[in-house]
């Protein structure tokens, strides 16, 4: 091991704490602001210490909503975001794992063209096909619905690639053994392959859940009804252009609530998250 003199080690600790402070400061401010009085904040006199409105603000945010531009309670928005995030994460994993299974374990006409058709979608992010996709969802009468929120985002080339990669490393003997046991392709998939893929699926789920929870442009376009709004869209609508009307404590409480689920997932599942991240990028 290369020697680390005491002084250098202190410098390292110091730099890391500065990094953490920079990373955490905006969130600290948000939490503080969510406990303070709106009038005080609007005057530009916000203090850097917690105020006394914690319960009041969060109660109003979750169950009542703002009195201005969007009257939807944030609790309902969070529910919409949760449904959307779960549908995207589970949907992506489900359709990717079965298509990867077909591509790896079967020989059939058009196998490679199908693989490439899926692969190329890596290059078509929702941002660049936004209006035509909107039109199709409208034609299918899926505006303002959970299906419309999730389905167009459910295809995943990266998840398919990841499972394909993983299936390639599964030894052939396993398949031969289960064939001797009289298992067909569906049995083998369900009893052998699926249990083996558990950690991959879990790692992917962490990444995809966050991806789904944090979607913004797509729900912004296809939801018009307030009760179908996701929290990311709702928070933007709370910031009115006329400053006087923005209820900043509620906006900040919403920001804190919007951060909680994904940040919790990242911190709690750190190992899986890092694994999933490094793998999906390959």
């Amino acid at each position, binding site marked *: 091991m290369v020697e680390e003199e005491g002084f250098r080690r202190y410098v390292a600790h110091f730099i890391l704490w500065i990094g953490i402070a920079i990373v955490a400061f905006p969130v600290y401010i948000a939490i503080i602001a969510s406990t303070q009085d709106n009038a005080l904040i609007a005057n530009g006199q916000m203090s850097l210490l917690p105020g006394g409105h914690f319960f009041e603000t969060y109660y109003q945010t979750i169950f009542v909503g703002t009195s201005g531009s969007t009257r939807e309670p944030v609790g309902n928005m969070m529910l919409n975001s949760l449904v959307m995030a779960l549908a995207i994460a589970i949907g992506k994993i489900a359709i990717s794992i079965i298509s990867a299974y077909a591509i790896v374990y079967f020989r059939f006409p058009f196998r490679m063209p199908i693989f490439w058709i899926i692969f190329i979608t890596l290059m078509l992010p929702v941002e660049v096909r936004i209006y035509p996709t909107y039109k199709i969802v409208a034609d299918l009468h899926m505006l303002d619905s959970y299906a419309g929120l999730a389905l167009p985002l459910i295809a995943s080339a990266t998840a398919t690639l990841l499972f394909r990669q993983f299936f390639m490393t599964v030894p052939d003997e396993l398949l031969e053994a289960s064939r001797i046991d009289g298992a067909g392709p569906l049995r083998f998939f369900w009893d052998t392959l699926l249990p083996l893929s558990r950690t991959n699926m879990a790692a992917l789920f962490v990444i995809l859940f966050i991806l789904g929870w944090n979607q913004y442009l797509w729900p912004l376009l296809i939801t018009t009804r307030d009760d179908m709004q996701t929290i990311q869209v709702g928070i933007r609508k709370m910031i009115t252009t006329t400053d006087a009307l923005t209820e900043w404590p509620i906006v900040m409480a919403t*920001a804190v609530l919007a951060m909680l689920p994904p940040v919790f997932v990242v911190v709690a599942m750190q190992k899986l998250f890092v694994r999933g991240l490094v793998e999906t990028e390959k």
Partner: protein
Amino acid sequence: MQKQAIFQSKLLPYALVAPQLAIVLIFFYWPALQAVIQSFLLQDAFGLSTTFVWFENYVELFRDPAYFEAIVRTFLFSFAIAVSSLSFALLLAVMADKPLRGSMLYRTLLIWPYAVAPPVVGVLWIFMLHPSLGVLSRYLRAVGIDWNPLLDGDQAAALIILAAAWKQISYNFLFFLAGLQAIPKSVFEAAAIDGARPMRRFWTVTFPLLSPTIFFLLVVNIVYAFFDTFGIIDTMTRGGPGTSTVTLVYKVYSDGLLGGNLGSSAAQSVILMVMVIVLTGIQFRFVERKVTY
């Protein structure tokens, strides 16, 4: 590479790929094709008639100084976001890679901003740097800066870059840390025995060995700055003041939604698609090379 052990079945594999294929064709290829077709069409103001105009939408676009400005602005933003976020993340990763007490805690405290959504990032930063009520604006004014990002375009741009770079630190940090930990420690020991001081060791040993990671992250960061900053821009400035924070993606959105100019918006989408294809291509070339290292 092919599997030796496979199943024989005529219909099952098609049934298995069908859901993925259906979604991909309906929600990816069909709209992408529509965008390409639309980009060759000109629609009158009421959407009553359309004419096929070949490349007129594209020609118009490249004649439009506003589009040219958006291209330059997008590249400037991307460059500024990538460089600032990468250099800060590298500094933190190098520190966190040292055998320090509590390094796991440091890691946990540094990676979570990855999970914060772009519009929330926008809301946090606009609140802190709001001209009249922002906590940080007080200090800026105290040191004599006339801070008002809602009126000053350059300040608005700086604000977007700051917020976007902040969010990306954790992602870059993670990949740098993984890259650093993949370098065998014996390399450093050899350099130390040769008498190289820490700074020298970093520039002559660590940095070159880390260059594949740096290049990979550069591409990822550019893609991020192109697309994922939409939520930040939309919550913080909505493209304003004027057009000083309108990037290419924001322009596709605003021209199509607010301007109702579908032909032009579609042509812009197609140009963006070409850019993504090029960037993804570079990324894959690089990943393939890394495998053979």
